[in-house]
């Protein structure tokens, strides 16, 4: 039987496939329903926060920052309550990262403010003198892609039944409503910022990447 397998490439390939597929089937599929249940009170991301998450992805913050607080005292002392599975229910994709060249960010919204982020993203050394993080000045001029963020929210609402427009939940509405909501949120953030160009842009109805990113970072709690 063994020898037969060795000489029949097709059945050999099937055999290999079964053996390697087995682990995935057992390990991954059955956990799906349970692990995707949100914690009580978790709201879906607003359009502006999603746009900020796109900035986080675009500049690949996960290269250096994790979003996963492990259940050790040294970590909960440093970053706060350890992470729960249900807190990530609306994270598509997950952004845990695999490397902490910089600190964890899962609850950065609890201890950093809009103006701290503004200074830090413009010039990290001005806030943390020994920092090795690069400055991200281009985020102050590049505009966030609000339409794509809205499209993502609408997609997860339609396809994955993410509870947008639920009572007391995150409002999504039509594209125009989504744009208007994002701008309103952006104005509140820009009010706490000092960069004049960013303020002017928001006043003119445009949303720079930095504003969206700060909205997202403030939401991480």
């Amino acid at each position, binding site marked *: 039987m063994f*020898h037969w397998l060795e000489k029949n490439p097709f059945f050999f390939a099937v055999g290999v496939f079964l*053996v390697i597929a*087995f682990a995935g089937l057992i390990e991954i599929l*059955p956990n799906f329903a349970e692990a995707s249940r949100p914690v009580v009170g978790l709201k879906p991301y607003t359009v502006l926060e999603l746009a900020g998450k796109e900035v986080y992805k675009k500049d690949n913050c996960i290269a250096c920052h994790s979003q996963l607080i492990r259940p050790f005292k040294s970590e909960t002392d440093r970053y706060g309550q350890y992470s729960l599975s249900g807190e990530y229910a609306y994270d598509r994709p997950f952004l845990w990262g695999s490397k902490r060249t910089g600190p964890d960010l899962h609850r950065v919204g609890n201890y950093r403010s809009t103006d701290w982020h503004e200074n830090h993203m413009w010039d990290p050394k001005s806030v943390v003198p020994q920092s090795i993080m690069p400055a991200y000045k281009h985020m102050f001029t590049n505009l966030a892609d609000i339409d794509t963020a809205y499209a993502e929210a609408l997609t997860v609402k339609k396809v994955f039944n993410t509870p947008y427009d639920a009572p007391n939940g995150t409002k999504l509405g039509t594209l125009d409503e989504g744009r208007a909501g994002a701008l309103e949120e952006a104005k509140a953030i820009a009010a706490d910022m000092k960069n004049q160009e960013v303020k002017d842009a928001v006043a003119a109805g445009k949303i720079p990447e930095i504003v969206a990113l700060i909205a997202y970072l403030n939401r991480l709690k």
Partner: protein
Amino acid sequence: MDIKGLQVYATFFMTIFLVVMLYGYIVYLYRSEKKGVKDYEKYGKIALDDEIDSTPIEKNPKLDNEDKGAK
């Protein structure tokens, strides 16, 4: 039985099954060599004697009548 129980049983029996298969394979390999049914070590020569006109260790019977059986 719920899905978790299934998971556990599936893992357990599949692991046992594969371990038995693997050990069966070891026994098979060494016994067939001892009995002279099959010499596995000769396949190692496929890499050494690999000119296009050298004689195959085992000829592909599909090609006996004519050269190409494009499949």
